[in-house]
């Protein structure tokens, strides 16, 4: 992790090699393989337009998976993603109904709502010690309930603001969608957070053994809560961007993101038990899942076949590099 660390040890690999986790390398290899396989079906799978389009679509999943990864590194999970995404999107659009101020604050407001849901999750997990799998399931139900009430309550505003649309579909640099940059920024921040900050170290520590982290004087509860809040915020931000992409918010926006986010994180080599994993892996996982879904969706086969191939491919890729080490 630190660049000056070369002194102490005998025979360490150079820094860049040491960082390359074989799992991540294989994951990127699988991405290439998928593209090559796809190109047998249609040449356009290798076209820059298609690849950029995939990168753009992957960005939404990428941002959501970033939050999911943070939580998984703690050995927890966030099942409230679907309705946090929807809440972020819907609330951002809703804010836009309140004049220019509302429009200006739309994006932060949407994110804030996600952070709110995340905080409830965090309090439940960190302070009430409820297993994350179930608190987040419950908050997901509550968020859904609130959104249903909200939609039915009064004629809701659900068009995305110009800013949201710009973030998702605009291109500051011609050809490269802004949202890809945003994912890049979020990702860089995450890498920095995980590698270079005390918070990141603490996250890994807690994921490995919370008890030891606590006895080391780390404020484990605050960190867990913060991580959940961040996950909520990132999910909601993903929702906001999705609303920008679709020009509007809708209720079921987040449904398609829960299982793929988990799968992407784990496919990227992060241990579901916490404490182990790199962000680069998650990037690979996100791209893998996005490509796989995309390629399958355009091949003309019955949905049943798509589902079966999707499942088999994930298992094969995991078998290739995602296996736990043999214990003897």
């Amino acid at each position: 992790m630190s660049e000056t660390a070369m002194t102490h040890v005998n025979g360490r690999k150079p820094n860049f090699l040491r960082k390359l986790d074989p799992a991540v390398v294989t994951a990127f290899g699988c991405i290439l393989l998928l593209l090559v396989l796809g190109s047998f079906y249609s040449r356009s799978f290798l076209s820059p337009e298609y690849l950029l389009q995939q990168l753009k679509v992957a960005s939404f999943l990428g941002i959501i998976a970033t939050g999911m990864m943070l939580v998984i590194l703690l050995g927890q999970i966030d099942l409230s993603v679907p309705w946090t995404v929807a809440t972020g999107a819907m609330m951002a659009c809703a804010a836009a109904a309140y004049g220019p101020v509302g429009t200006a604050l739309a994006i932060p407001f949407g994110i804030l709502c996600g952070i709110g849901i995340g905080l409830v999750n965090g309090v439940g997990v960190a302070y009430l010690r409820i297993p994350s799998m179930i608190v987040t399931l419950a908050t997901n139900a509550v968020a859904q309930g609130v959104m249903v009430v909200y939609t039915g309550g009064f004629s809701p505003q659900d068009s995305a603001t110009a800013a949201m649309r710009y973030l998702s579909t605009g291109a500051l640099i011609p050809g490269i969608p802004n949202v890809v940059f945003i994912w890049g920024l979020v990702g860089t921040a995450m890498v920095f957070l995980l590698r270079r900050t005390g918070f990141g170290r603490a996250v890994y520590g807690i994921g490995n053994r919370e008890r030891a982290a606590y006895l080391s004087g780390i404020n484990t509860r605050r960190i867990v809560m913060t991580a959940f809040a961040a996950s909520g915020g990132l999910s909601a931000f993903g929702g906001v961007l999705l609303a920008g992409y679709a020009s509007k918010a809708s209720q079921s926006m987040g449904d398609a993101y829960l299982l793929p986010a988990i799968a992407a994180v784990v496919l990227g080599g992060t241990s579901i038990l916490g404490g182990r994993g790199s962000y680069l892996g998650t990037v690979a996982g996100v791209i893998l899942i996005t490509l796989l879904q995309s390629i399958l969706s355009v091949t003309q086969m019955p949905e049943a076949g798509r589902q079966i191939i999707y499942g088999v491919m994930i298992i094969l890729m995991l078998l290739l590099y995602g296996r736990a080490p043999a214990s003897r």
Partner: protein
Amino acid sequence: MNDWQYRLAEHRGTLTAVAIFVVMFIIYTANHPAGFTANVIQTAANKGVLLAFVAMAQTMVVITAGIDLSVGMIFLLTNCLASWLVVGSPLETTFGVVIVLAVGAVCGAINGAIVIYGRLQPIVATIATGAIYFGVALLLRPFPGGSVNEGLADALTGRIFGVVPASLAALAAVVVLIWVPFSRSVYGRAAYAVGSSETAAYMSGMPIRRGKLLAYTLSGLVAALGGLFLTFFTYTGDAAFASGNAYTLFSIAAVVLGGVSLFGGKGSAIGAVFGALAFRTIGDLLFVFDLDPLWQPLFQGLILLAAISLGALALFRVRNRLEWFL
């Protein structure tokens, strides 16, 4: 402490689940326009038993410190299969039932094999196999349909002696014939031990792989029993993705309400069964409280949140903060 205190401590999770269920069910029937009648109970039982089977299946995997996100899809797949096979003469029907259960067990065994021999993390492995099982279900039933031996279906979803819901009796029989022998067998104990500490179990020379594999296989079998009952209850097969997913997620909620630890090694399928019944009763409460229809989902969410927060009350008794991290 004496024996009974230890035993009470051992079963606390299960007993809490029973208590939560009883309280909720009393509130429900006390406010039901039809009251505590055989019909109302039969209706509640038929609905509750389905989730109870799925939750029991989930429990078997969860005690090994795994999780099965494909359990709802096994439930769907076996439902679709049953809508083809469990028809006709008694012999054909029996044959059909056997095949359906065997397919469920095979699905469970596949999950187990991938997790054990493939050494994959259960959560993603079962996301993937779930997609496969759903795909197969969809092949079997591209759209809803099929039929079932209605005599058998009516018998198993009806009432025994006009009082006891047959589905409840079947559930009890499954508990006695599958869960109890399993949990008391050497393999069952190995499954618990693996969930509690895999290394320790291995070092103690337990048959951990076989224990785990058996747990996954029985889990598939019990999920298939659920799928079979779904067919008896609806007379059809239906590969509804959303419904399969819902059952998977509900089963996790039920398992937690039932006092089974998601970290493995602790809890009982009996607790999970009551957790499932309690979870189902949350939905039933909608009938007896006159809520605006759009507020109903929120109400359900809040009740669930409240029910799981009950467990947090125990925190106030913890005087050694290290106990938070067990």
